[in-house]
């Protein structure tokens, strides 16, 4: 499988605590196994306390790149929260960018306390659509809740990303990687979550 751009720039965004880092690790590790150069830049530290977090993943077949994606240069945005999809589009978007969003809003503190209003869902969905060349929306948190584990929304989204065929990775690549990564008692649940996300995206095509 070849990559359509070199470097291929993937942004993974969300809110601290949603498990961004796990995704960038799983993806990075699988790409490395396939012989790609991978660099991952990440938000860590204070921002993890409920703040906006993101990972920049840069994939190349020819050379190692630095860990940060220049503004306006994302090819794919995978986001665990819709306001964060928009934030990333504003920073990294361009007419060719593809977005996959977990449309399950998480309110910032200012909204929880009634100081700010979370953007109107329809307007938000529309803005994301208008700024993307191709969009997918799913509610992975809800799917996770149905599994009794809302936290696996991240792995559900990973399934969706792989199903979108934007990365040079197959379903099996990730399944193997997950088997290597998770402690045995959590493997089944995560494979299930991955499959749910994979199918959810495919069913939209």
């Amino acid at each position, binding site marked *: 499988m070849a990559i359509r751009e070199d470097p291929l720039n993937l942004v993974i965004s969300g*809110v*601290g*605590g949603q498990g961004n880092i796990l995704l*960038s*690790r799983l993806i*990075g*590790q699988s790409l*490395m196994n396939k012989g790609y*150069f*991978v*660099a*991952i*830049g*990440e*938000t*860590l*530290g*204070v*921002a993890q*306390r*409920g*703040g*906006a977090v993101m990972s920049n993943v840069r994939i190349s077949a020819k050379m*190692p*790149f*630095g*860990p*940060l*994606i*220049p*503004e*306006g*240069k994302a090819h794919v945005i995978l986001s665990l929260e819709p*306001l964060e999809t*928009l934030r990333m*589009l*504003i920073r990294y*978007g*361009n*007419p060719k960018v593809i977005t996959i969003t977990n449309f399950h809003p*998480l*309110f*910032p*503190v*200012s*909204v*929880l*306390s*009634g*100081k*700010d*209003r979370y*953007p109107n869902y329809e*307007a*938000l969905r529309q*803005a994301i659509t*208008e*700024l993307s060349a191709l969009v997918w929306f799913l509610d992975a*948190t809800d799917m996770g809740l149905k599994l009794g584990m*809302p936290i696996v929304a991240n792995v559900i989204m990973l399934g969706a990303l792989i199903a979108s065929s934007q990365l040079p990775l197959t379903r099996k690549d990730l399944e193997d990687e997950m088997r290597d990564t998770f402690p045995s008692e959590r493997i089944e649940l995560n494979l299930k979550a991955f499959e749910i996300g994979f199918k959810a995206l495919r069913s939209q095509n």
Partner: protein
Amino acid sequence: MPSLAQGSPGSPQLFMGNKAIARGALEAGVQFAAGYPGTPSSEVVESLAQVAKETGIYVEWSTNEKVATEAAAAVSFSGLRALAAMKTAGLNVALDFLVHLNYSGLGKNGAGLVVVVCDDPEGHSSGDEADSRWVASSEGIPLLEPGSPQEAKEITKWAFELSEEFNGFFLIRSSTRLSLSTSLVTLGKLPHVEKKAHFDTSQCISPYLARLHHISVLERLAKVQETFERSSFNWYQGPENPELIIICSGVGSSYAVEAVESLNLGKSVGVLKLGTLWPIPKGLVAKHLAKTSRVLIVEEVDPFLETFVKKTAFESAKVSKSLKIYGKDSGHLPKVGELKPDTVLKALATLFQMEYLAREADYEQRANDAAAKLLIDRGVTLCPGCPHRASFWSIKKALQKDGRDGFLTGDIGCYTLDVFPAGDKLTKALHAMGSGVGLATGFGHLDRFGSEQPVIAVCGDSTFYHAAIPALLNAIHNKSNMVMVLLDNRTTAMTGFQSHPGTAFDAMENAAPTIDAAKFCRSLGCKVVVTDPFDIKGTTDTLLQLMKEDGVKVLIMQRKCELVRMREERRYPYKVWVDVEKCRGEKCGFCTKSFRCPGLLWDIETGKAQINEAVCCGCGVCVDICPFGAIVREEAA
């Protein structure tokens, strides 16, 4: 995933910069590592701690960075390689020792000693953007700066060898973007080390007679420079006679290479990347300066290289006097904040009169419109169920009830979030580790000058052991009037739950003696009270009472960090809900506007509070802050 000490030589691994440094230390045969946690440096020591049992090396979290470097130096004096790692703020703490250590050298039997310091440009997790390279230049300490995780591993290995060769410790400078970014690292071999430590008592390792030692520091630097001139960590790529050379270091080197490539300037621009930063390899730099007429310097944060490249150009006869040097002084790159690939791209484009557009103007416009219409910030806040939120609530109540315009001095930890945009801002002064208590000892003397304002210092448990103890002793001995509130959550939460002298385990997860903060403070002769911050009324009343008493009082608000509790117990204590009948809605809003746990949300439709089920962790404490008993809890099944 294999551990840091596994994996076959030659195979690639994905490591973040800090982990790569740790692996480099293992490949160099390090036997002892110490540090104090601090973003972006914690993973260096943490990664080594994780393989301590497997490899037989010794790793500790020391009470502070000075102690960490002292302990590591002692091991180096005794013939075993040692490492200490810290963030920039911590280097300041360790500096008193390090300056003198640089004079004394490592003694007759000295083994490699490497000190890793991680700067935090942009202050992502710090109160400063300090560039620690100046410390190397002002104190005459040799310094290396890697540009990628792979290089971080190699340079660390080399630093141990150099340290032995030159009988002095070497500094490795990293920064957030390198320390916390992940990329491919090819593993090397792990050596077998004969571990026989011996301290040669025929010597005394000391910087005294300083003048003589100062001479040897300068001589050492001169010799190190000769070695640096030939180092493969300094490399050049590009045409023989480039129109412009980018001189860069650290993560800036990958941005420089990328900028040349994206702007298609490979035929006119060369990149000289430096990995040996102090002393500057002046000969090498001068040789390249002589081949071009323009230079752009790309580095993080201050114009450090820029200053010394200019000096080199001035001193070298071969360099054209009309050479133009661009960078931070010329305004092509910013003097504040983290370096970004975009800024380098723009600077280079400007110098070649090219236009660099991140994206089409029309898209830019649409993105900006969407931002103006829809985007809101997402502030950082304490976790749901965090004991600090309850502690701050009680402090706020006590200050209000006391009514003498009292205030809080703050410190470094999760509770620092109080001064962030989404915080309560009860904290009126906040600087460095332990400074909350130090400031309070001064404020606590203001009564002699007519002030009636009471002062409270907050300080976390790890911070208390790190730097607050001397301030507390000072306050007691010099009869200051203050309350120290110890926010004791039984861990070093902010940086990832590391051990400290108050925990029952150490960095290697062995059982360890606990230093009981309450007993310790009592032994100093001050009044000490311990409360549970979730007992809001009891805590508030106690604090109010202590504020009225003279002298130094210590109030320990003790409850486990919620994230640690959850990891251990894996269950929510309560089921919590809002009784909409009792909730007074807009007339109150106490819980969401004032207490502001993210587990509570304001339902705009009904105008009442609601539990945010996906977020609430059922700690139940908001039940006690609602003045109308509208929040209800029931023991979870």
